[in-house]
């Protein structure tokens, strides 16, 4: 059901854990839906110098969190913001359609953490270009809670 890459990131998740000195934190999802992601970012001079996560969820949710934190590390805030759910899914060599929402959650978690940082810096929050609807997705279902 899962690609080798998903299984690799599920079984050996990168960047798992809390970050004491994170300056951007985003939590998305809902326990009712079966997945919650908490993303921690350390941002210095507009660059993501460290990224960590904690996730409650299925194999795809854990692998998506792991891959998303890998993808944003070392990127400028602008570049990190552009890491889409599709990029996460592609880097994982694909996700089953029913699990695409896990990659959406990872993108949203990164965005929320970036905006948390911007807010703390007194900067205007960035707007989602293509806000993901919470009851409909092109390639899969999302939880309606």
């Amino acid at each position, binding site marked *: 059901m*899962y690609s080798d890459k998903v*299984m690799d990131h*599920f*079984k050996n*998740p990168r960047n*798992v*854990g809390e970050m004491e000195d994170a300056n951007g934190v985003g*939590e998305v999802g809902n*326990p*009712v*839906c*079966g*997945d*919650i*992601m*908490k993303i921690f970012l350390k941002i210095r001079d507009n660059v993501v110098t460290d990224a960590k996560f*904690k*996730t*409650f*969820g*299925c*194999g*795809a*949710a*854990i692998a998506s969190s792991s891959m998303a934190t890998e993808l944003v590390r070392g990127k400028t805030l602008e570049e990190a913001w552009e890491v889409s759910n599709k990029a996460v899914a592609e880097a994982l060599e694909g996700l089953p359609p*029913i699990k695409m929402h896990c990659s959406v959650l990872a993108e949203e978690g990164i965005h929320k953490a970036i905006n948390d940082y911007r807010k703390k810096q007194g900067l205007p929050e960035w707007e989602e270009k293509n806000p993901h609807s919470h009851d409909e997705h092109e390639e899969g*279902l*999302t*939880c*309606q*809670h």
Partner: protein
Amino acid sequence: MGEKHIIYMDHSATTPTRRDVLDAMIPYYTEHFGNPSSIYGIARESKVAIDTARAQVAKALGAEPDEIYFTSGGSESDNWAIKGIAYANRKKGNHIITSKIEHHAVIHTFEYLEREGFTVTYLPVDKYGLVDPAELEKAITDKTILVSIMYANNEIGTIEPIPELAAIAKKHKVYFHSDAVQTIGNVPIDVNAQGIDLLSLSAHKFYGPKGIGVLYIRKGVKIDNLIHGGGQERRRRAGTENIAGIVGLGKAIELATADIEGHNRKIRAMTDRLRTGILATIPNAYLNGHPEKRLPGNINISFEFIEGESMLLWLDDEGICASTGSACTSGSLEPSHVLLATGLPVEISHGSLRLTLGDSNTDADVDFVLEALPKIVLRLREMSPLYTKKEGGCNVQ
């Protein structure tokens, strides 16, 4: 994966076909392949084999052979029983009753009939998954034509008070159907003593082959056909008989019901040790289903702060086959309707694990799972934002 030892603890999903059952089946694919509707010698062999299997099933259920109808499995039997009774008795009334924890083969059939204009009552269950006979009594009206309650639940293992429920249906002259797919070989069945009018079963749940089942229909019950066509099964169920499957089902039910008590003693000893061990070593874990009134091989436990699919993936990595009530494995995003019906909070339903033991399991398997599972649960909890470790315990953030 290599030659990893597999610990199969998903016997409620399916069981392996026993070697002696398979051996009994093979000749009916090879030399005795004749269509029992034909009149030559090899066809007569097939006919005799079906009669023998029918008698074996009848004996196991305390029924008469001419009350046994072979079907393609549990789903067809459930569909036939429910739709067949509903359509044949529509003039008497349009009200049908079931429970909230039935298998999808029953629930979705009732939902279909609801769309067709029937009125359906879905009886609630208590926190153990038990249907209250008093609730059934209250629900029956003079328009009720069918009550369908499963004998034992496939997810949480709870065994329903079938004789009591059936007696209430009988008192009101309402047909009583039971999906006994999980029950054969685990609970002794006697359709007369237990007051059952229709009963579904499926061979692959008791070490027989897949694709073959039975609907028991008490003599005199008014029921429409579901599969129309040729005159097989005394004009009740069309289609050339799955002879090898029927032979396998007959042999398997004979073996599964030969010593139910002895079988249960063996399975229950392993199950009890595993259940006690898990609950003793893993905090924030809760048993689902009734503590005693449950299938001998069933364990269903919810673990707080983690999700079921990720547990299954790690268990699979250890060679352990299990299942979960989490949404994430069901193809939908809703967790198990059974766990929700027992009042379990949705977030805890996502963290449920079902282990169903059977003939292939050993004490060493139990030891292995007791060793592996606590580590898996802890590993997932440590990456869960819902779980924070405090000295000596944990709490929800």
